């Protein structure tokens, strides 16, 4: 599944994710399978990219995030040694890639509660997910500060 970068508006992208989970309703197993599908579809990083520097600490599994800027927007890619975490990362990238740093910095993640993700991935992984979100915001902040 490629990321729909055509949807430039972050709120539209968010809606798309919410719709997908809403469709799956209360079926936790299906949500997990969906996350795994996302994870399996996300292209892997090269061994070189899976460096200590790119690693996000605080997650149960190993997670890497790479980034570059292109014409004022941030381009993100990532990988993980577990498929479900890769799926989570994929959600994040889906939302954030090809966005302006300021938009990433300002985005409020409280809507995640509504899609029941925390229930299915559990407290510990939710914690790890928060670390991923943080890393994205930190990266965005760095680019943003360079510019201003």
């Amino acid at each position, binding site marked *: 599944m490629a990321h729909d970068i055509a949807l430039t508006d972050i709120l539209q992208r968010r809606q798309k994710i919410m719709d997908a989970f809403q469709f799956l309703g209360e079926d936790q197993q299906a949500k997990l399978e969906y996350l795994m599908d996302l994870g399996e579809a996300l292209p892997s990083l090269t061994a070189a990219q899976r460096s200590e520097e790119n690693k996000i600490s605080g997650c149960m599994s190993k997670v890497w995030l790479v980034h570059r800027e292109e014409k004022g927007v941030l381009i993100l890619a990532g990988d993980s040694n577990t498929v479900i975490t890769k799926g989570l990362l994929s959600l994040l990238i889906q939302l954030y890639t090809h966005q302006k740093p300021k938009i990433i910095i300002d985005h409020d993640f409280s809507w995640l509660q509504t899609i029941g993700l925390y229930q299915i991935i559990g*407290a*510990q992984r939710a914690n790890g997910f928060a670390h991923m979100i943080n890393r994205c915001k930190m990266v965005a902040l760095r680019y943003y500060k360079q510019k201003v």
Partner: protein
Amino acid sequence: MPTPSSQDSFLDTNLAAAFPILQQKIYQKSLIYLDNAATTQKPIQVIQALQQYYEQYNANIHRAAHTLSSIATRNVEDTRAMIQQWINAATTEEIIFTQGTTAAINLVAQTYAKQQLNAGDEILISLLEHHANIVPWQMLAQEKGVVLKVIPVKTDGTLDMDAFDQLLTAKTKMVALVHISSTLGIINPIEQIIQKAHARHAVVLIDGAQSIAHMPIDVQQWDVDFFVFSAHKAYGPTGLGILYGKKQYLEMMPPYQGGGGMVAHVTTHQSKYQPLPYKLEAGTPPIASICAFQEAIRFIQTIGYTKIQKIEHALLVYAQELLQKIPAITLYGTTDVKKKIGIIALNVQGMHHLDVGLLLDARGIAVRTGLLCTQPLIDYWQVDGMVRISLAVYNTFQDIAITVQALKNIIQKHGT
């Protein structure tokens, strides 16, 4: 015997109703529980929370791979966050779960103090201390050659602050002091003591076992370095204590115990430890007690410390007034109700404290007698024990009236 009139409208609440054990009969008499300094009773919410834990989400925590474990983990961390806010700690990393006040003090003695203090350094305690805040320091003194000094009390049981000023020197590296005396109910001027100790670069541990249920705690405002208490003395379950420590101190401390949960990486020749708070929490903690303690905190917060203090203060005033009128009763320590909480230590002339305790018990009244785990203080009064009445928020004027009447009867029959 008159009881205070209904003008005290805050007394309307029947808090005892939430405590199943208080509905009980002891020897066909309703239980009057006045041993709250030893342990408080538990409201039904706490008991139900334990049941809920075991019936709905019992699981081992950390590194959770499954839902139950995830729920249990979140609940444990929720309790930590509640405690942090409750006592106004700066971060949740400063809240460590232990087995009790005793374990928490031993932890600080065996990690922080053992590492930071050297032979000849001095630790100040007071004559008011519970054994839990004496023996760990004696053990350390023996092991490390640090010197234990004791702040004396004045004849009314309050701390001798002049003596404290004298004892506090450049050699003092640690002050370990009880917040409220478990025997006399006297509240120590800890803010002043902390300030003076800090001015001398001494680190302060406050034993809050008797304060947590009775007055608001603010570790940041007081700038206290370590603060310890037990859940079971604050309407919570047994087997759980809390160590608050300033992050800077907790971070410099080596781990106390080794085991699961406190390590990040283990090989057979060495281990890397987890960050705070986990570094100091080895093994499976008392998960059920931690989860259920939330309900105890909620119980306290729902009533509010203002009201708790008002109720307990009124009960104390009433009890002391009645007791002071009985010539055969000796009260220990100041009776100035501005300086103390609802703990009253007494003896009956010509009677042994054990006999008084047992005779009260036969009337369904539970008090504690003996050395009360504060032998140095009891020795100071040159008696071999006391009878201690200690109040909680669910006690009533009727409890007091019945108890005083019982004491009068006992004195009439058996006193000299």
